């Protein structure tokens, strides 16, 4: 038998996987260098070398955009590991940080862009870098919140015995974080990174054209390319952009997410061997290549080394009595109260005083219109996708084909198709209040579909046989068997779709084609208009009202529905 070697290093000279890995690594380095070069150029250069709609520029633009997405994803990861950890570890901080996260999640992304752009541009005055900051931060805001939420959830649900094992073997908090908590949270985190990525693509168009007051900066990238194509009414360019986007998303999927999903499979805590282990050629390449293996071993050693450097302070971390800390609690609460009062005062003095009541009521009315739109569209999409999803989910072969397509569609930025809709509306003189509406659910409806498919495929075969055996057919079967069985999954999908649609409203209620604006009445177009003119008060008001609506709808409608469905219909 082969002797066991815990630390494997280069033994053979190279394998064919090494060659592949070498090409990929060098390609990546070249790509990063190429994109980074443009960062420190002065802003003026963007004006002297304007964007071009020639398809030959698309690879470069795609690379720039991809780089932004990656940077934002990295920032989101850093944010997640710190913010969520702080919220989960300190009960006192958590009481404030978790609700903040919930609010941030509901703030429309355009709001972030308009409010923060001045600040970021001032960080690197006159350089492209500043504008890049704005774009990356905007993408970050569309990715970070749900990742942080998922990691927070994971940290709170690490199995007690694993925590106790870590504690009784005297792991330092630092070591426990890297050896237990991060790995445990990894599967959920990767899944949320994929969702985040889809959200990011959607807003790339908005993020790459930064307008500050009256001047507009268009960063080279796919987003700006599309914006320009729309301005110049160039349908062919749009077509090229769509093709490029398809390729980029496909590459992302193959090179980043597939390997990640296959890799995190080992971090699942349920110990039964998975029937269908996720596979990825890219991961196989990385695993078989000695080069990359060496790198991971080195990384692993680095983690262990840091664990050795960071000392364990000998205080039990489980079961800490918190009674003597009452006074600190009091201090904390009073600090929060002071902050809230200050914030309120600021709001009242600076904003509400300047806003007429009529304006506020008007905005609430617009929010109601958008809300109506969201609900009606979710209902319509459900009518279509629920039966289809159940049909597909019950057939494993079909599900295997449809599921990845649905996930891909969810990742594809639906706003690329908006120009086509505008073209139609203008040509046939349709009512935009109605015909613009479907756009907001174009990208989010897929969440309903793939959740339903996932739900239907978990219906136990025995339950289906029982229904068949009892002769349950037709409407009765839908009412008593299929629909209840998928309800918890449906609610999850609908919640995601609804949140996404609210966000999409900012982009889909005001769509332009050349110099024609097509506008649907609603809060989304209100915010979009305000952002274009740079009316700070209107932006704050619109963003505030939208956050308020989203939070209230979540608390009063979706959350109770979710718990009801989980309690009554979850098949365990």
């Amino acid at each position: 038998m082969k002797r066991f070697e815990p630390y494997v290093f280069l033994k053979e000279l190279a394998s064919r996987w090494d060659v592949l890995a070498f090409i990929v690594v060098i390609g990546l380095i070249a790509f990063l260098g190429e994109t980074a070069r443009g960062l420190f150029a002065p802003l003026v250069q963007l004006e002297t070398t304007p964007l071009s709609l020639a398809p030959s520029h698309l690879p470069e633009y795609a690379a720039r955009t991809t780089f932004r997405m990656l940077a934002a994803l990295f920032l989101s990861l850093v944010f997640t590991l710190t913010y969520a950890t702080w919220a989960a570890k300190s009960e006192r901080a958590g009481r404030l940080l978790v609700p903040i996260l919930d609010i941030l999640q509901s703030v429309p992304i355009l709001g972030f862009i308009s409010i923060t752009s001045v600040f970021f541009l001032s960080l690197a005055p006159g350089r492209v870098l500043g504008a890049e900051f704005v774009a990356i931060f905007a993408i970050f805001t569309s990715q970070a919140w749900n990742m942080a939420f998922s990691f927070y959830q994971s940290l709170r649900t690490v199995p007690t015995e694993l925590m106790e094992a870590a504690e009784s073997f005297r792991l330092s908090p630092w070591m426990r974080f890297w050896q237990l908590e991060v790995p445990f949270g990894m599967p959920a985190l990767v899944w949320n990174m994929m969702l985040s990525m889809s959200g990011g693509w959607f807003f790339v168009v908005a993020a790459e054209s930064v307008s500050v007051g009256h001047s507009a900066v268009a960063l080279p990238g796919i987003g700006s390319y599309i914006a320009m194509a729309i301005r110049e009414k160039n349908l062919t360019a749009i077509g090229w952009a769509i093709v490029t986007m398809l390729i980029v998303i496909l590459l992302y999927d193959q090179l980043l997410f597939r390997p990640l999903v296959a890799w995190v499979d080992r971090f699942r805590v349920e110990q039964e061997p998975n029937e269908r282990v996720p596979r990825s050629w890219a991961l196989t390449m990385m695993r078989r290549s000695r080069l990359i293996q060496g790198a991971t071993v080195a990384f692993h050693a680095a983690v262990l080394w840091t664990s050795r450097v960071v000392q364990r302070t000998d205080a039990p971390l489980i079961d800490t009595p918190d009674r003597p800390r009452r006074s600190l609690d009091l201090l904390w609460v009073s600090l929060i109260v002071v902050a809230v009062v200050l914030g309120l005062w600021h709001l009242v003095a600076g904003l509400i005083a300047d806003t007429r009541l009529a304006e506020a009521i008007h905005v609430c009315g617009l929010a109601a219109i958008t809300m109506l739109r969201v609900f009606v569209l979710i209902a319509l999409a459900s009518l279509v996708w629920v039966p289809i999803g159940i049909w597909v989910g019950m057939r494993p072969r079909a599900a295997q084909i449809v599921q990845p397509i649905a996930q891909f569609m969810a990742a594809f930025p639906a706003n690329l198709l908006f120009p086509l809709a505008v073209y139609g509306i203008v040509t046939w003189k349709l009512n935009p209040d109605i015909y613009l509406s479907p756009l907001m659910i174009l990208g989010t409806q897929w969440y309903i579909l793939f959740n339903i498919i996932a739900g239907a495929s978990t219906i136990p075969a025995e339950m289906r046989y029982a229904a068949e055996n009892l002769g349950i057919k037709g409407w009765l079967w839908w009412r008593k068997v299929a629909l209840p069985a998928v309800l918890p999954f449906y609610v999850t999908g609908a919640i995601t779709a609804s949140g996404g649609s609210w966000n999409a409203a900012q982009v889909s209620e005001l769509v332009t084609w050349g110099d024609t604006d097509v506008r649907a009445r609603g809060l989304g177009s209100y915010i979009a208009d305000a952002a274009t003119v740079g009316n700070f008060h209107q932006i704050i008001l619109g963003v505030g009202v939208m956050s308020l609506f989203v939070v209230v709808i979540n608390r009063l409608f979706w959350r109770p529905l979710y718990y009801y469905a989980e309690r009554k219909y979850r098949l365990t």
Partner: protein
Amino acid sequence: MNDVPLLQCIDVRKAFPKPDGEDLLVLSGMNLELHEGQIVGLLGRSGSGKSTLLRLIAGLADPSDGHLTYLGQPISGPARGIAMVFQSFALFPWLTVFENVALGLEAQRMPRAEIRKRSLAAIDLIGLDGFESAYPRELSGGMRQRVGFARALVVHPNILLMDEPFSALDVLTAETLRTDFLDLWAEGRMPIKGVILVTHNIEEAVLMCDRILVFGSNPGRILSEIKVTLPQPRNRLDPSFRELVERIYVEMTARPAAGAGGGRAERFPGLGIGSVLPKVSSNLLSGLMEAVAAAPFNGKADLPEIASDLQMEIDELFPVAETLQLLRFAELEGGDLKLTEDGLAFAHGDIDERKRIFSRHLLTYVPLVAHIRRVLDERASHSARKSRFIDELEDFMSEEDAEQTLRAAVRWARYAEAFAYDDENAMFSLENPT
């Protein structure tokens, strides 16, 4: 025997704060000594605080009162010389067998080469050779627990704590692991000097331990200490082995002495609605009554015998037997379960007969059910909210216990058709669904 005990617990007490500000006592008056060369068993049912005590010793929690010392030093936080084996193995699924074992040494910042040497030695000792690079998910339950053992032994502890280490395994695997462990222990091949084993399996305790501490509940405390002097290896079929098992059964079913206030009496009737009701279904109750009524027991069964007959562990059997006693369907004494007249009538009756008898006993001997029924009868609407009763119960017990108690009452009352409960609206009523 050495003079300085490996481990000493003096008057240890543990209480958890309840929402109403009062304390819930889970462990009281714990005195325990562990000397070199001993395996001490903590035997008791779930809720008797034996796992809590183990966690205090492991330094995973602090006692509310009393002292714990390891080699004369007070325990504060996990001590270096104390390692633990967990019921659910608690392996890190993303680490290989080798990495799992090495982790504890890694935490001690031992030189790499030393880690490797010691980990491989521990893996070797425990019979995991060849599995070093396997992930836990690829292993069977027995192999996983072996990793659990290797991981604990590799840090060369003086004391090994075992929290029901075999209860998640099937009978055969558990037996193999026990035997292997006892062999290593007898041959002195493990670095450990003393063992504390938590278990609810009486035979396991008698098989492995030199001393057994029998735990009682409400609050958790030591009922008695039993020395096991049988030579190793022990034989389950040996009459003196059986006798000891029988003796412990008697010990564990003994009624509390009069005046042992706040003790087990809380589980028994006559104290109003404040007693915690166990999670036992009417099916189990009638099942046990039928089994005792039938041959060969004919109305009176020896507990160890019927336990092995029904393949139930004491943890499962005791609550059912006690509920029968609570409902006056049976008497528990001297390790025997004896059906009362009504118990026998129930066992031999048809469905309607059974429901009549059950309903009568339920309304007579379970004050909570009688109380709910009275409230429903008195109200014009014949309905009441769940929260009304939960609030009442929480004057006497924790939130969790109140929920469980009300659930038990609902379960039995549904069988007896004493009243109806609608879970969706959380409403009690007298109407039965049409």
